[in-house]
């Protein structure tokens, strides 16, 4: 019954529905990339510098004759995988720290928040670049670096939620009925702080996809994984001769990030309706 309400609220936002459709296409593309393009996207399957629709190549080929359409399909896997895993890692770090800070307050909060502030002071893209460069690009190091720069907002959000909820009367009530800290954190507070966290993390997936593509653009992607950002970055130098090499992968990033943002807004509408309740005497 609640899920029906959720759907109705979500579907009221047309953009969110469009976002979901685009995302579905991207996910399908990523999932079935090895079936649609069994060859590795690195394979030089055709003549280099073919334009779109030339010699049976849908979106053209790049400077070494690698198929761009295949790269986009396989790149979807990389982007989504990195986007999702890094968000998951950031969530774990952010929510844990934020929850601890918000729940226990006092010096725990103080220490954790100074720590968070430090990470917020450091320009996050620069930090990602430095981390990935130093720990050598691999899917693992990229995920970790993105997570390391992404958790602070989640921690702040979780902290704010926990602080607010902690002083909420139903949590106080749980304390007065003798519930343990774990019960209070996991059964009373966490479920109630979930919806803003879900909304933020859906947006964070988008940011992570962008971050990954930016890293790859700079040549800091996993050298063994074809990603969209890599494709744009590698084609940058020949943009005067071959616009398609950077155009299509860029478009893929744009659509994916757009879709994730639209979904985030839809979730926001559905999960955090602005309750204009005036509890007044």
């Amino acid at each position, binding site marked *: 019954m609640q899920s029906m309400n959720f759907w109705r609220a979500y579907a009221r936002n047309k953009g969110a529905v469009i976002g979901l459709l685009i995302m579905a296409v991207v996910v399908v593309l990523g999932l079935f990339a090895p079936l649609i393009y069994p060859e*590795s996207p*690195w*394979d*030089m399957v055709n003549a*280099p510098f073919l334009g779109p629709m030339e010699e049976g190549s849908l979106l053209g080929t790049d*400077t*070494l*004759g690698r198929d761009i359409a295949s790269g986009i399909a396989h790149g979807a896997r990389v982007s989504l995988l990195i986007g999702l895993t890094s968000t998951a890692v950031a969530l774990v770090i952010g929510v844990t720290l934020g929850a601890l800070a918000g729940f226990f307050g006092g010096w725990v909060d103080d220490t954790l928040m100074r720590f968070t502030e430090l990470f917020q002071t450091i320009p996050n893209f620069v930090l990602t670049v430095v981390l990935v*460069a*130093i720990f*050598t*690009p691999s899917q693992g190091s990229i995920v970790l670096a993105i997570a390391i720069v992404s958790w602070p907002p989640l921690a702040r959000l979780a902290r704010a939620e926990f602080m607010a909820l902690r002083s909420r009367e139903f949590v106080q009530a749980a304390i007065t009925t003798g519930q343990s800290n774990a019960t209070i954190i996991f059964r009373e507070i966490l479920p109630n702080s979930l919806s803003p966290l879900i909304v933020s993390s859906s947006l964070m997936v988008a940011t992570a996809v962008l971050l990954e593509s930016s890293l790859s653009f700079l*040549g800091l992607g996993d*050298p*063994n994984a074809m990603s969209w950002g890599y494709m744009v970055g*590698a084609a940058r*130098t*020949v943009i*005067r001769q071959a616009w398609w090499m950077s155009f299509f992968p860029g478009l893929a990033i744009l659509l994916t990030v757009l879709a994730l943002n639209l979904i985030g807004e839809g979730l926001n509408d559905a999960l955090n309706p602005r309750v204009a309740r005036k509890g007044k005497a």
Partner: protein
Amino acid sequence: ADQPARGGTMNIIVQPEPPILQLGLNQQGPTQTVGGKIYQGLLTYDKQLKPLPSLAESWDISPDGLTYTFHLHKNVKWHDGQPFTSRDVIFTTTKFLPEVHSRARANFARCESITAPDDYTVVFKLKEPFPSFINAFEVASAPIIPAHLYDANTDYKNNPANATPIGTGPFKFKEWVKGSYIHLVRNDDYYKPGLPYLDDIYFRVIPDAASRALALESGQVDQSQYNDIEPFDVARLKSQPNLNFTTDGYEFVAPVSWLELNNRNAPLNDKRFRQALMYSLDRQFIRDKIWFGLGQVATSPINSHTNNFEPNLPKYTKDVAKAKALLDEMGLKPDANGVRARIRFLVMPYGETWQRLAEYVKVSLKQVGVEVTLENTDVAGWVQKVSNWDYDMTANFTYQYGDAALGVSRTYVSSNIRQGVMFSNTMGYSNPKVDELFASAAKENDPVKRQALYSEVQRILVDDVPVAWLLEMQFPTFVSKKFNNVITTGIGVNESYESVYMTKR
């Protein structure tokens, strides 16, 4: 062209900005290009690497190949007005260079004595014959340094004179605005009357590759060299009406690039595997699509411009079937995923082109069932890993300095397997026959016999494939059509430019 006439200013790109202009103390490319106009060596070399006079007017080599006598120009003056004499040459070759210049140190260590019978004669006596000795006297290998400024103080690196370099060359140091330009002016007291023609040379610092291309196109600078222009921009600039393009002038450095293979690690320790590697690469494709046509497929360990190159060697062309057959023969059968072997490739951290190469190698080897994993590092990590032999495969290139004994043998002889030392025999290739051939060739005075020895070693190496040679690399030089006589010798842009002149319009 019309008659050479005095006058004119030339703007040359310099990139990166050299740390210092004292050519004895630093031999980076940019230092050479600028310093080559200020300092001079005893000799220079033409495009066939035949010695030409520079500070030495003439020279003779004793028939036993042990005594080299140089006769110096007589009316040469340092830029500060002091006369140039054999004392400077003795100081440079016995004290200064052995202290600060590793390549020169190795060369002059071969001398039993270096003496000056008079002010204008210098005699080098070798311990044993070394015919390549004559190839070690150009301005970067052995720049002559003013003894009167350096002899008093042995802390050469901190000598105040380093800031205002004093040489004998056709151009004098005038001004250096760090981060912007280096200004050289005509040396009016140059010992060749009427030369040089140009009044000024500005070396402009343009850190950004795209800006450099633009500056050339728009005529704001007149010359670029080495890596100033990215390979992908070359085709476009070649068609610019205001520019001349050449890849000449690098005969002396004559770089060869290769895939460096760690001969210690299985399966790379098997000759057949290395040959299979050669058969799986389309090196013409590498030249055309990755280096955008710059370079030549290398057929030998020795660059075709370097002395003693052997043209008649077996050639490797892409042949997947042959490669697979070799692997089969080794017993490397494809597993369920079609993989016969797995190796790591340490990507050379020198920019995108090398990255592309790594990607290409990965795909090419996959076609024969070798799975390559790419690894990235920084320069420090790369140097450390390669020099400590902690790699399977990487890319590399070296300069050959015009001579197999000076620039080639160091890569292959087993005496140069030195852990922790870069540009040594880092792949650990060891073949007593090769060692012996290189050793006897180096001291063989008879050019015909020498060629025979070098041809034989090339044949063995090509069969052994200690490294997978890729290209005889070429660097693009663009020069404005306004300037004449620019690239005339085998040291190209490092020349003194004494005879460069500008066409008046």
